[in-house]
């Protein structure tokens, strides 16, 4: 899976939770919970959706790495790369 595909998956799953948000306008470095008004239930649903879609296990201890859009994509890229290795 390419980085573009991961980014698209993240954008789509976040958009499923916050459909009114234009993902193109989200600052990659901004706190997703704040800019997208995401609460812990939304975030858990996002993690669940990514888990099912990409087959990546995301333990709770790693949640701080998924605070921003850029951080989330980077984390998933690294996880997928390590899974392939």
């Amino acid at each position, binding site marked *: 899976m390419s980085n573009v595909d991961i980014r698209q998956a993240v954008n*789509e799953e976040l*958009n*499923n939770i*916050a*459909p*009114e*948000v*234009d993902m193109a306008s989200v600052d990659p470095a901004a706190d997703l*919970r704040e800019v997208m*008004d995401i*609460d*812990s*239930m939304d975030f*858990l*649903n996002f*993690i*669940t959706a990514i*888990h099912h879609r990409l087959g990546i*296990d*995301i*333990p*709770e*201890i790693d949640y701080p790495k998924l605070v921003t859009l850029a951080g989330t994509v980077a984390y998933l890229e690294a996880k997928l790369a390590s899974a392939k290795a």
Partner: protein
Amino acid sequence: MVEFRMPSLGPDMEAGKLVEWLVKPGDWVKRGDVIAVVDTQKGAIEVETYQAGQIEQILVELDSKVPVGTPLALIRTEGETKPAAPPPKAAAAAPPPPSPAAAPSIAPMARAPMRPPAAPIAAAPPGVKPLPQASPAARRLAQEHAIDLATVMGSGPAGSITYADVERQLGKAAAPPERKRAPSLDLNAMRMAIAAAMARSKREIPHYYLEHQIDVTPCERWLTQKNQTRSPDDRLLFAALAIKSVALASRRFPAFNGFYRDNRFEPAQAVHIGVAIAIRGGGLTAPALHDADQLSLDDLMSQLRDLVSRTRAGRIRSSEMSDPTITVSNLGERGVEALYGVIYPPQVAIVGVGKSVLRPWVVDGAVGPRSIVTLTLSGDHRVSDGHVGALFLAEIGNLLQEPEKL
């Protein structure tokens, strides 16, 4: 014969608009089946039947706005025999038989002539099973694009069709943002409903307010350990612990669990926690998590996830709107340390859950960092006093010290 009536979905609801029938005459229904969709100020509500049986007659036509209590359909209960000779087809246009109990409250609209359900249900040939369940948003989208719902594969609970399913059918990867929110949610109407209920509350209920700081470190440690080995599908949130502890405490302190009506307090037999859920883009509603005191934490969490998802998608059920016995509101995630809620009448209490903050705290004579949450109680002075309110909050705090026992 039993009348299926327009339900009351809140103290300020006077009428609702019937927007969809999910059954047609002759269909068999069981208790808990969603059989109609009603548009209210709080959005489209899926209305369940409390009576099992066979749909005898549809009494109210689609898009009719009728008062609460109006008979919408007749259900022949199991064991009842059908009339020897079925009424001729023309009888379907006759007014419904008079109902002494409901007659005084039925407005002219409610006496609209009966007619079979509108398409697409009415278009189904006899013997064909009813169309699969679909969310109001999905139905509307399908209707707008002339999509036959029978051809759409549902991915929602029990195979129900979601907005996304219809989108997929349309071959649309993404709809314009302004059309993605469930179109049935009229946020202006919801704001008016909130205003009416809260104004009534402030007018009628003599509130008192208490706050209590609770060390939730045991909860956080327990959750971390519990979730470590769980898939995201099965993980628990602190909200589930808070709701369960409020539910258990409500059972022990019945003065906070029930309704104040007709100048007297009616304690509720069951504990149905109203969960305050923010609607994206504004608005708030508090549907019930039924029998929360009886649920295991896993079941409670699962039902909470379902309730939040459906509420935000505009798919609340009538039973969830009509009978919460006490409300829990959690604004901690938004950085709020303490919130003092307005009681939702006819309830008599609301518990607020604030943000978990790391504080220096004395435990066993030594100061250390602990996670502290401020719990608040808004109570109805007509029913309880601050003393018992303090005991109630303390009980919630005590329960949260041993999350493994919840």
